[in-house]
């Protein structure tokens, strides 16, 4: 059985994913780490315009990725292995004032 995780979006990223800021998904067994998750999201969940989400097997610059509310860089980045009940967040950096 696949793992269940929560995806959360902000800063406009939600517009690419069905205009939903939070959703739970069950992952196929093939999705092991964040790199797999990004590929899976691009292929299966993204509504349009992949260039607004991915660049060279990672997220494009200007997207903050959080693993359980911490910067993904301190959790291992693309190599982080997903666990049940993880919350993975994709938030675009904002530029406005």
């Amino acid at each position: 059985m696949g793992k269940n995780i929560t995806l959360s979006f902000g800063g406009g990223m939600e517009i690419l994913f069905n205009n939903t800021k939070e959703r739970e998904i069950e992952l196929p067994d093939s999705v092991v780490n964040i790199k797999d998750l990004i590929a899976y999201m691009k292929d299966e969940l993204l509504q349009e315009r992949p260039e607004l989400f991915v660049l060279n097997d990672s997220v494009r610059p200007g997207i903050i990725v959080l693993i359980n509310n911490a910067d993904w860089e301190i959790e291992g980045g693309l190599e982080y292995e997903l666990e049940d009940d993880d919350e993975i967040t994709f938030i675009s950096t904002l530029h406005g004032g």
Partner: protein
Amino acid sequence: MSKEDLDRYSRQILMNNFNKDSQLKLLNTSVLIIGAGGLGSTAILYLGSAGFGRIGIVDNDVVEETNLHRQVIHDETKIGLSKAVSAQQTIKKLNSKCECYVYKLLLTSENALSVIKPYDIVIDATDNVCATYLINDACILTNKILIQASALRMEGQLSVFNYNNGPCYRCLNPIPPPAGTVTKCNVSGVLGVVPGIMGCFQAVEAIKIAAGLGANYSQKLLIYDAELGKVRVVKTRPKQENCSICGKNPSITSLIDYEDFCNMKKCTNPN
């Protein structure tokens, strides 16, 4: 401190973790606010009233009617007037003892260092990605603490950079977003009070830093979403050794061409 100052700031000095010495520290600290728009409006109001000895305001725009749903430091009588001057007029009436200087100019690679140098703390209240990288780099080169925030639609983000050996904006964002992915208030819209909240949070950081109480959001990112009513404070990566501006062997040693760096033909003014 004068009896007049003791009176004026008495409600602040009454706090158990903030005393006369804290207030004196504020009076001896200077803050530069870059952008007198949605974020700048409340940041300037509260920094001007809190008792900072000197504040500077940078803005090259004039007040427009479409600003007034969120830029509450201005008003209808100021339409057409320089935003920096308009904000200065408000502060002069609110706290005549605060020295308030204006810079009616667009911050550029040519003037940024000299504008920033005389200040202790810098507040990025601009509205575009080029300005944010420019201000970040200028703060690293002049070793100033930077309080950066932004707001769009119903969301806001804030972080403190170059504080106590913490990261800078580039440590977190080494590569700028592709030009086509960035939208602004005049495209995506903004709920006026959201930059208001973020500007207030910037003022809190400046006051706490100046008073020696410590920044809340160094190596942390505050993320506010008014649509969900959610406020997150998340831990970010520390200062990066390979950062191109604040790292061990920085490749950037003087300000660069930020429009080129951000792949933007033309950046708009900070507002």
